[in-house]
């Protein structure tokens, strides 16, 4: 295949009557490129497999001491106590609550910004706002963490929620939401801009208004990319560590009440990795079990995203 191609191509550049040259190394070069690309892909696959294997292996050590059932159904998480309890539900409730608040902020805001940038904003505005959004993504999350703790929580206390605890999931969730807005806005906008102009023209030609075209035509056309953006944002919110560790306290409580403080899976992992528990102890091993839970949650999220995309699939 590549051989005949190369002959055909080179013949085009030759004067009539010149013999066709062979290109013996082209085949080799293509093989080499293919090999390098395959290698790059394999690195990604192997890394994922290695992470999974380590998590499962280390978790098995943990589950020798704590039953899987107690771990999954227990509502008390006190690995640091003399009489430790290893019920993971408080960490899961914390993670889910914070993620839900974050998405409640990021999805509507991110989508609105994406629609505005893609369908309404003049070229000059988009050229300014897009890089700004990407800049927000570059801000270290520890900055956002202290923003939540030292600005958002006091603001909430001074205005609408006087009794709010100093450490709370609400501020953490809101700020994670703000931090993930650019992810959703930027990726969704890319997806919307990829919708061919001809489809928009089809709707305008029928007398549609701009907002109707954006919402009823462009949005469904881009839904695959938009859902991918939501899933990525959710994954980032679940995995977010610093903001919750700083703003929500590190006190694992089984609650879905956003005004209370709580710990999340990642916040706990960070806390333990920083040296609160001796290496090799049961408590230390619990972080691998938590890691495994995170992995499963992310997996579930991706499956949901996949199902949604299939359900609302379109052809662009």
């Amino acid at each position: 295949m590549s051989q005949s191609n190369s002959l055909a191509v080179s013949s085009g550049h030759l004067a009539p009557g010149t013999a066709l040259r062979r290109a013996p190394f082209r085949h080799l070069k293509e093989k080499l490129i293919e090999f390098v690309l395959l290698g790059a892909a394999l690195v990604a696959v192997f890394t994922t497999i290695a992470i999974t294997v380590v998590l499962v292996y280390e978790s098995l050590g943990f589950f020798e001491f704590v039953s899987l059932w107690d771990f999954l159904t227990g509502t008390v998480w006190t690995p640091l106590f003399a009489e430790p309890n290893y019920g993971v539900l408080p960490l899961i409730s914390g993670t889910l609550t914070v993620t839900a608040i974050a998405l409640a902020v990021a999805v509507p805001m991110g989508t609105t910004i994406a629609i505005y940038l893609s369908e309404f904003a003049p070229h000059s505005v988009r050229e300014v706002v897009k890089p700004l959004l990407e800049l927000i993504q570059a801000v270290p999350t520890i900055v956002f963490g202290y923003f939540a703790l030292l600005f958002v929580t006091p603001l909430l206390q001074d205005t609408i929620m006087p009794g709010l605890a100093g450490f709370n999931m609400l501020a953490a969730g809101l700020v994670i939401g703000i931090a993930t807005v650019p992810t959703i806005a930027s990726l969704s906008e890319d997806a919307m801009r990829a919708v061919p102009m001809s489809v928009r023209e089809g709707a305008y030609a029928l007398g549609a208004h701009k907002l109707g075209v954006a919402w009823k035509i462009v949005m469904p056309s881009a839904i695959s990319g938009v859902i991918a953006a939501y899933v990525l944002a959710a994954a980032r919110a679940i995995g977010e560590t610093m903001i919750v560790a700083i703003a929500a306290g590190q006190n694992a409580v089984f609650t879905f009440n956003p005004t209370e403080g709580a710990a999340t899976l990642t916040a706990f992992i960070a806390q333990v990795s920083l040296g609160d528990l001796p290496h090799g102890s049961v408590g230390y091993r619990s972080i691998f079990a938590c890691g495994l839970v995170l992995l499963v949650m992310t997996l579930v999220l991706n499956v949901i995203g996949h199902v949604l995309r299939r359900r609302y699939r379109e052809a662009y």
Partner: protein
Amino acid sequence: MVTETSSPVFPGGATEPVVPPVAKAQVHDLNFFYGELRALKGISIPIYKHLVTALIGPSGCGKSTFLRCFNRMHDLYPNTRYDGRIVLMPDNVNILHREVDPIEVRMRIGMVFQKPNPFPKSIFENVAYGLRVRGIRNRAVLTDKVEEALRGAALWDEVKDRLAELAFNLSGGQQQRLCIARALATDPEILLFDEPTSALDPIATASIEELIADLRSKVTILIVTHNMQQAARVSDYTAYMYLGELIEFDRTQTIFVKPKKKQTEDYITGRFG
């Protein structure tokens, strides 16, 4: 706004049809600009009611640009400017006027594009879209209208059992007829076609041409085509354009059999260039 004579004079004294045609729209000295580029240069022609007018000419001569003035499509893009008038009858209103809402214009003048562009919705919702835009919510009315439009586009028999299916599942020719049905559902007064068959095979093309011929009784049609035989087959009047100018406008028969301009003749007979 200027009143137009409803029975126009035929250029060059062509044989008049038994019933003189009535103008549905009159284009007056139309110029169009993409930024600095003057893409249309002082075009004036009538568009006759319930007849098919074909626009022909070499690539880049401004056929699409001209067509898209009729539904103010250029308003969607910055740095474009109309100059001149398209007077729609019987209202006697210049639809290019700044104060005329382009959406009102598009409510009455439909368009079918070169490439089928169905929406990411079901077959039913594709056809119902224009009706929903017009505020029609009543399910029975929608169902009736959709069926009528699909029948009008000769697509009903093929899709009546799969109305809930995604429109992308249809073949290219079916998609194009769906787009025609979508435009028909809104009862347009003028229907604009921009090379509607250029992405289709000969059989699908034949069925669309047949459809256009049938539609003439209900709606005024303006069609851009690259295909000379197609212009000859489907149209009653033909306008030949070159480099943004109107070279000749006459009855299709005259244009193809006895054009007045050498330039037109060269193009028709393929000696163009």
